[in-house]
């Protein structure tokens, strides 16, 4: 029996890639740098950042929707990626500034003087003048790019190995991942951790060596890069969850014990997916923060990771495109409502100001989605396509608490 090609087994890939390409083209054509400027540069940046968040959501969906681990520490990898690329951005840019100011001296600076000047400039705010050990590779873009995937990957590998080995799962694992990101955030908040404490890294929107390129053009370039990364990651994720590997991964989600008894190395599968997702998330972060311009430890607080889970849940977990839809819709809606541009609703006696009430509406709608539409927005597509739930004739789907339950399968 011949198998259908990979793309044909996953028609959603083509749709997503086409939509993404069309979106990128339209934004480019309307941007200030390459088009008629209908979309201002700040909006282009917001759209580019949203694509990065969608990328992180795809990774979250891999971990949660397919592997069944509700990781509440996913944004730690995101911020780590941002910090690691930020190190190079900040170092290289400061080096340029310091070199220019030292060139005013009659005597050209030595390499050591230059480094001391850079360290003084970067760490003056936290009362230090030495370059910490963790900045050893900050002068080199290729090394730092390597670290962007290596460090979060390694962290996920070690953490995952420790957690999966001792069979921590379910709610315990969620709490543990939350503890991980909190620990990392608290560590970064210290002034002597080598990452400028709560000042974080700033000025990341200026790319060293590209001083001649204005922000309008840069923002479009980053949009392209984010769209490309999202497209590649989507294909990769779709490939991972299809085929035999994907089947085992989903089986682990539905009944881990049963898969273990069938002889599969459950821990290995979990580790592989968890680490891959961490790396994808880190890349998303590395693309996000140069567009945001600043990163500080508050980005690692557990709440950010929980919001990521909220996006995936509203979009529809277990569907890769659902994650993208959720991240894009909810994060854009959030910034629209909290930006103060949404019209207030005037009720008799009280004016509902969306800046104040959006969080309440989001929280309530999230509860409603969890209760009544566990498949999220992506469930709409299933319904449109007429996809029917499998006929189980009332049989049990498995005893595990994380499993798709009978009622849900019929929904």
């Amino acid at each position, binding site marked *: 029996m011949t198998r259908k090609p990979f793309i044909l087994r996953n028609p959603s890939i083509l749709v997503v890639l086409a939509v993404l390409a069309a979106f990128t083209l339209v934004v480019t054509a309307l941007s200030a740098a390459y088009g008629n400027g209908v979309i201002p540069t700040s909006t282009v940046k917001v759209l580019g950042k949203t694509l990065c968040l969608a990328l992180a959501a795809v990774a979250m969906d891999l971990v949660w929707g397919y592997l069944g681990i*509700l990781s509440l520490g996913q944004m730690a990898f995101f911020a780590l990626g941002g910090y690691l690329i930020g190190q190079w951005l900040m170092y290289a840019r400061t080096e340029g500034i310091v070199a220019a100011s030292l060139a005013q*001296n*009659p*005597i*050209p*600076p*030595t*390499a*050591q*003087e230059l480094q001391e000047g850079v360290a003084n400039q970067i760490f003056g705010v936290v009362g230090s003048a030495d370059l910490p050990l963790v900045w050893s590779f900050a002068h080199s873009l290729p090394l730092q790019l390597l670290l962007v995937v290596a460090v979060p990957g390694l962290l996920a590998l070690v*953490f995952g190995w*420790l*957690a999966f*080995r*001792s*069979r*921590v799962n*379910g*709610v*315990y694992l*969620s*709490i*543990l991942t*939350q*503890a*991980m990101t*909190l*620990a990392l955030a*608290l*560590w970064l*908040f*210290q002034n*002597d951790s080598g990452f400028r404490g709560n000042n974080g890294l700033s000025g990341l929107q200026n790319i060293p060596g590209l001083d001649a390129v204005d922000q309008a053009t840069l923002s479009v370039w980053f949009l392209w890069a984010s769209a490309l990364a999202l497209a590649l990651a989507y294909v990769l994720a779709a490939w991972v969850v299809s085929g035999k590997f994907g089947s085992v991964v989903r089986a682990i989600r539905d009944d881990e014990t049963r898969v273990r008894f069938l002889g599969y190395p459950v821990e290995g599968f979990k580790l592989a997916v968890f680490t891959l997702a961490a790396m994808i998330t880190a890349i998303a972060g590395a693309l996000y923060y140069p567009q945001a311009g600043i990163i500080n430890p508050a980005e690692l607080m*557990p*709440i950010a990771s*929980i919001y990521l*889970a*909220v996006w995936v*849940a509203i979009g529809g977990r277990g569907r890769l495109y659902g994650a993208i839809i959720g991240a894009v819709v909810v994060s854009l809606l959030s910034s629209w409502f909290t930006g103060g541009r949404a019209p207030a609703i005037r009720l008799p006696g009280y004016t509902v100001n969306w800046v*104040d*009430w*959006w*969080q*309440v509406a*989001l*929280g*309530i*709608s*999230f*509860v409603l989605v*969890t*209760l009544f539409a*566990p498949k999220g927005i992506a469930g709409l597509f299933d319904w449109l396509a007429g996809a029917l739930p499998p006929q189980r004739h009332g049989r049990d789907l498995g005893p595990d*608490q*994380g499993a798709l*339950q009978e009622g849900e399968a019929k929904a």
Partner: protein
Amino acid sequence: MIRPLIVLLLTLLSALPASANPALEAVIARNLDQIEKPSRRTVEPLVAEIAATGPEGLALLSAWANRSLGVSDNGRLLIVEGDSATDAVTGQPVPGADLTMLRPNSGVRGVIDSALVAGEISSPDPARRASALASIARDGTAAHLAALRGAPPEADPTLAQQRERATNLLAIRFDTDPAARVAAINGLAGDVGLDFRAALNPLLATTRIAAPAEPQANIVRELTVGDSDFPKEAAIALLTTQGVLQPRLTPADQRNALAANIVNGTVSGIPVADLSDPAARDRAYEALEAAGTVPPAATDAEADAALAANRFFETYAEPNPDVTDAARAAQVRAQVRLAAMTGIDLGLDALSLASIYFLAAIGLAITFGVMRVINMAHGEFIMMGAYTGYVVQTLIPNRTLSLVAALPLAFVVTFGAGVILYRLVIRHLARRPLETLLATFGVSIALQQLAKNIFGTQARPLTAPAWLEGAITINDVISISSIRVAIFVLALLFLGLFLFIMKRTRLGLEVRAVTQNPGMAASMGINPDRIAMMTFGLGSGIAGIAGVAIGLFAQVTSELGQQYIVQSFMTVVVGGVGNIWGTLAGAGLIGILSKVIESFNPSNTLAAQTFMILFIIIFIQFRPRGIIPQRGRAAEA
């Protein structure tokens, strides 16, 4: 310093009936010129003489020290108070006197103050003796030491003890006889008071000196160059500050010297562009040195020679070795006792932190144990309790009464909220813990924003009643605030209440049955749904009470719950679910460990929290189900 004392004196003395004092009269008559122009060196016997004449003499002295003493044209001394003046000897008011105010300098006033305090020490009134001692303890002088030693024996045992202590402390600082100082130090041995340690510190202050031979000084030890606490750089720096060695060339000096000698774009023939290389800079500088343009800098060879020619000593500023030995021994003893007391203080802190975590986590543990769901809105129930306390306080002004009313009311409010949450959300997500976690998170962000909309973003005060303010202080080191003691008591109460409900009531029996095996419990006629609702309400209610307790010492904001929720999760996870003793053990472990880690580096609480969480992550490796894991079939479900 002594001013309040003097004011007291004045008010007391001005009430005395006016009576002539011939002795005082005579002393003044003999020494009027010296009273008008006193000298610090010679005034002491005169002051003593005046003080000996009785209350009028003391009043005169205090007025003199206060610069409110004047001398009239006819040679009478007058005490001026506001606009009126009274005769210093007779106490009669003198209206419209034409007088010159006396302005003794600070040295003279010091002598007078000492004499006054010395007089006070022998005063028949114990309260005045006590305040005199307190004023000496605050700011003692060598004169006080003499006064204390010369004073008649003290009858009151407490005051006698205080006086002996003050005498010893002053003797350590001012006594000229080394033997007496050693005796004073030994007399206070084992004391951990701040003042004793402060008195010892100057005795043990050391300086480092370099000398070719052993100097005539009280030497602590000879330093060896290259030791971990005395590296070669420190030795060279010491030699440089003593002027034995030329300062060595710093890179900045070198650069400036080179920059000053640029000729046609080169420095001694080396192009400026090449000077980004340190080796090229050295070559250029040596060339300048050879040409005599720049002063020669100290070379390594010179530094080594100077190091070899000198020995390095650490010396005490205090010359007498007996005194420093005694002080060293006393300091070591004080430090040992101090360490023990710090340990006790740390234990108290840890206990109070543990009881806070226990209160915050107990509700979470109950719901998690029975239903296997994590309630992310638990932190918001804590917040709700704190805000309930705030609202009650705005309605009932009496703080004690409002606290008494707030505790049950917070329980009722959060119990209701918990039951509503259970009926509307959690019941429909039964046995899907991850989804429950997310749904309750939705509730959590909605409640947080709601609180912000109602109460605003600024912190609201929840003030403790007066009897809960302040701290229980045992000595300089050990102290604990009353609120924390109250929270500890509250935690104990809840432990007792919870044990009672679980072990002695019908509800507790049913809860335990449902926890162990819901299916079996249901077939025995227990309604698991109702039990789950009741436990959820109970857990939420306890969160509300914890909120009132936490609100008493923390800021009541909409983020209050967030600060405790992660720690509460940790407590539950570390302790193990479904068992109150597990929660207690978890809270105890986390509380003690946080404080212990924090004590290593008190300035950096962030690092302490980081290590704490890392520890928990590692701990879970070895006890994945907590300290007291649930056993049996229920654990598998």
